[in-house]
């Protein structure tokens, strides 16, 4: 598959709908579907800049946000996106649910489904949990992060942010630095960036590099300077201490010394480099404060763009899918 040229915003996209009723991961999307979501998000971003930040598009739709893992940014972002589209939203958090009483995921899902929601946005600590739900539920399932597998809306908002600055993704050198092993953001971004024709480098301690990572069409290294050299975009990943069982590196201080993004390291990148981080940030571990708050940082743009991208996904999935219409 050849990399598509990024569409110009004035041209109609090559496809006008998504094939699936669900958004489970970037792996399942075609480059044209990704462009459709990103182009739609451009229009959605404008809605958020109006005095009245609300449109009636999803009036009467019910969306359940089912979060089995703590999340502030993603859950808030989805909820704002849903409200801006006039959907009715319902938040279910693990601490207050029946799961603590022993209910299985499938039973929880079927009980929610019995109340006729139109869409379920789910975050779960198990990889593949959304795929299970998509098989047993009629509602559209949107993956808001499943274990160490995928976090598709994060990769989409990252691509949107890159496109906003650089106009295209094709041909850019993107260095992704940090905890590669535990990161669903990494997996979604690798799928997306390679599909859009970027040159992707991944970098981290050897103990945190998945053994078969080259299979995904990326270059792996443990030398930050090599990854960052002439990079157009640097994405920092959080060290996920909560997912680490065992010692992957000697200490956080040593990690920062070897892999932390500092202004000195940044000088090897292109002068117009963008610094990204999916959050939450560990200042002084993977990223120095002067970089996180510096002129190259687009970290808060990413958060703002997350709402627009999620609005686009919700809107495109709400109408259902073409293959079902034909059935």
């Amino acid at each position, binding site marked *: 598959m050849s990399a598509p040229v990024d569409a110009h*915003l004035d041209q*109609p*996209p090559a496809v*006008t*709908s998504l094939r699936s*009723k669900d958004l489970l991961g970037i792996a399942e999307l075609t480059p044209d579907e990704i462009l459709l979501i990103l182009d*739609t998000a*451009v*229009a*959605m971003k*404008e*809605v958020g800049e*109006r*005095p*009245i930040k*609300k*449109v*009636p*598009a*999803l*009036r*009467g*739709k019910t969306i359940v946000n089912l979060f089995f893992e703590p999340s502030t940014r993603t859950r808030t972002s989805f909820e704002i996106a849903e409200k801006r*589209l006039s959907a009715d939203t319902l938040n279910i958090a693990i601490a207050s649910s029946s799961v603590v009483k022993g209910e299985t995921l499938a039973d929880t899902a079927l009980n929610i489904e019995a109340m006729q929601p139109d869409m379920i946005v789910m975050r779960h600590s198990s990889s593949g949990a959304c795929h299970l739900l998509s098989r047993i539920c009629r509602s559209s399932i949107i993956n808001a992060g499943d274990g160490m597998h995928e976090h598709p809306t994060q990769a989409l908002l990252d691509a949107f942010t890159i496109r906003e600055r650089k106009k295209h993704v094709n041909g850019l050198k993107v260095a992704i630095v940090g905890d590669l092993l535990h990161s669903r953001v990494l997996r979604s971004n690798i799928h997306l960036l390679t599909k859009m024709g970027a040159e992707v480098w991944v970098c981290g301690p050897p103990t945190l590099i998945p053994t078969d990572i080259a299979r995904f069409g990326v270059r792996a290294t443990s030398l930050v300077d090599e990854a960052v050299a002439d990079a157009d975009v640097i994405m920092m990943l959080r060290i996920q201490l909560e997912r680490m069982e065992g010692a992957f590196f000697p200490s956080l201080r040593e990690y920062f010394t070897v892999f932390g993004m500092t202004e000195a390291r940044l000088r090897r990148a292109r002068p117009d480099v963008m610094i990204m981080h999916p959050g939450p940030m560990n200042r002084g571990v993977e990223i120095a404060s002067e970089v996180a708050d510096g002129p190259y940082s687009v970290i808060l743009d990413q958060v703002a763009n997350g709402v627009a991208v999620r609005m*686009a996904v919700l*809107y*495109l999935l*709400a*109408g*259902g*899918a*073409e293959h*079902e*219409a034909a059935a």
Partner: protein
Amino acid sequence: MPVVMDADRIGRTLTRIAHEIVERNRGVEDLALVGVRTRGVHLARRLARSLREIAGHDVPTGALDITLYRDDLMRHAVGPQPLVRRTEITFSIDDKKILLVDDVLYTGRTTRAALDALIDFGRPRGIQLIVLVDRGHRELPIKADYVGKNLPTAADESVQVYLEESDGRDEVVLQQGGAA
């Protein structure tokens, strides 16, 4: 495929509408043009040029995408969604007289959606509707203030407006049995 308006006719019609706008509003003060995407935007920009020639002032011009306000969204549980394009209204519409521009007035549903969308941007002093072609068959109580051409049509006919900016030529065509 009868051509009901050619390039000259479209040009003269827009000039005439521009003069009507100036006459009715006694100038162009407090006026703003908002075109409905896609072809209404091209027409709004042309009217802005005419108004500048006639009155010597620039009239702010914006583009409105009404997709998210359509009344037929989500009517079917499944099916592709219509494409959403960016709305660009960079000026405040508060207390302005808004000239809403569309290419064809038919059922009136697009205009209804456009009115709802506009009101979300503020409280204009008034809204006037400009259309290049009024083909009848209204389903809502909506009437244009400025009409380029009244074109009686049958329900199974369709009116296609082609404009230089998007289609490479200026032409209004009446088609038999087409969907539009």
